[in-house]
């Protein structure tokens, strides 16, 4: 008979822990996802297709992709710049900058949206000037982009700051000592060093940019076919008791999330050696 290690807890504890963890995940994560998918297909594939392809839904999908396509690159550039400044240089106010980057995570999304209404809305600080110059921000695409940028600002920077701090400046100094320009150093040394963290950050940033509800809801104005993103469109449909269509669009959003997750896992698998080597 094999001897049982006295460092290991009894088999019953192990089994209970695994069952508890799995049922919690099942109840809180898998069940809702299952409900969304079943409800979406409740009336069959034809109804699902009709729900996601009617003009208002198509416009919501396009708008969501457009907003993400603008907001994500902006936050990638900002995230790299901020992480670079914070990890490679010492300057006054560095701690304040690190704290401020996290601000969007601690502020309620509704407040984040309201800030932009107070700034750029008709009664806002710049409202009169904007109306006089015929510039639309609130209840239009620029407002949606601003709110999304604000909400998703921390993702890339937060992934990169610890990574770049741990890597230090030595590789960059080596490249410079070998005659590389600043741009060559960034392109050939810094970027390859941070690419995994950067990809994670982009994926998470993108998932949130497409799924954001609160802040976007405040600045959108809910104009059907014009300023409704996918999450807002789901709410409108749901409030109209159009459950099948609501769940159909919701299932698309859930699908996007699953694709993001799959991509992240695929990347981890593809670069598992590098991840292990870098520690």
């Amino acid at each position, binding site marked *: 008979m094999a001897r049982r290690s006295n460092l290991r807890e009894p088999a019953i504890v192990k089994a209970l822990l695994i069952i508890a963890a799995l049922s919690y995940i099942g109840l809180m994560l898998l069940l809702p996802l299952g409900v969304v998918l079943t409800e979406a297909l409740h009336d069959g594939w034809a109804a699902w297709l009709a729900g996601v392809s009617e003009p208002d839904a198509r416009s919501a999908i396009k708008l969501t992709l457009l907003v993400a396509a603008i907001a994500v690159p902006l936050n990638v550039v900002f995230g790299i710049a901020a992480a670079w400044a914070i990890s490679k240089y010492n300057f006054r106010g560095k701690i304040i900058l690190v704290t401020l980057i996290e601000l969007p995570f601690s502020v309620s999304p509704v407040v984040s949206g309201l800030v932009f209404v107070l700034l750029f809305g008709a009664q806002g600080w710049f409202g009169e000037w904007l109306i006089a110059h015929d510039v639309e921000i609130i209840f239009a695409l620029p407002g949606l982009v601003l709110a999304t940028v604000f909400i998703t600002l921390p993702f890339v920077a937060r992934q990169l700051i610890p990574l770049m701090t741990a890597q230090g400046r030595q590789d960059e100094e080596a490249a*410079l000592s070998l*005659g590389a320009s600043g741009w060559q150093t960034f392109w050939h040394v810094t970027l390859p060093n941070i690419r995994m963290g950067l990809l994670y950050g982009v994926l998470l940033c993108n998932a949130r940019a497409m799924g954001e509800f609160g802040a976007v809801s405040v600045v959108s104005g809910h104009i059907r076919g014009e300023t409704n993103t996918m999450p807002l469109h789901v709410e409108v449909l749901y409030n109209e008791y159009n459950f099948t269509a609501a769940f159909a669009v919701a299932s698309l959003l859930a699908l996007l999330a699953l694709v993001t997750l799959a991509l992240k896992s695929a990347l981890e698998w593809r670069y598992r050696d590098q991840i292990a*080597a870098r520690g």
Partner: protein
Amino acid sequence: MGIRVQGISKSFAAYPALNAVSLEIADGEFVALLGPSGSGKTTLLRIIAGLEMPETGEIWFGDRNVTETSIASRGIGFVFQHYALFGHMTVAENIGFGLSVMKRSQRPSRSEIRTRANELLELVQLPGLGDRFPSQLSGGQRQRVALARALAREPRILLLDEPFGALDAKVRRELRGALRTIHNELKLTSIFVTHDHEEAFELADRVTLLNQGQVEQVDTPAAVRERPATPWVRDFLA
């Protein structure tokens, strides 16, 4: 190429300070900067390399004042304590990096860069390892690759910051011999930072002893051993 360090001062938080340090190094000389941690030896080396700016004083390479020259244009090779090899590049790509970032008009062809990398691998006694990645090499091998990489653009001056600090005693001894041979063969002018006085005495033509940002003594190993200039030097070597 001779090096002249003239009244270099620097005081700031990230590295230990320097106080009006002057030093003359002749063409072809091998000089060790020796001192305890916090003595400013690494700061001085980084200022000579162009990785830090001094507050006062000048750095001359031959008859060229390089105080304001960027590190990329100083024509030096620099070897770091923790190798600083690029993990996503092969050994050959690491060694060829300095050549591959040259201006298009001066840049050698791919095959020339590869040939040069192989020559340098021979020089540091690692022939045939060009296609490995740094993570597949031992510490001593990595530092040999780092040395080869620093030599790719044929610098006249080689600067080494505690290059063997992370290696065990046996590998250190082997690498010391290899480094001194390469220095002589290529007729380099080399500055070597270390806190280990045996290493300094064995390798260097002259030793510069630094303490709290000031030069205590500059002399040949034999002279330093026989006639320590200050009580501090005598204590440090004891």
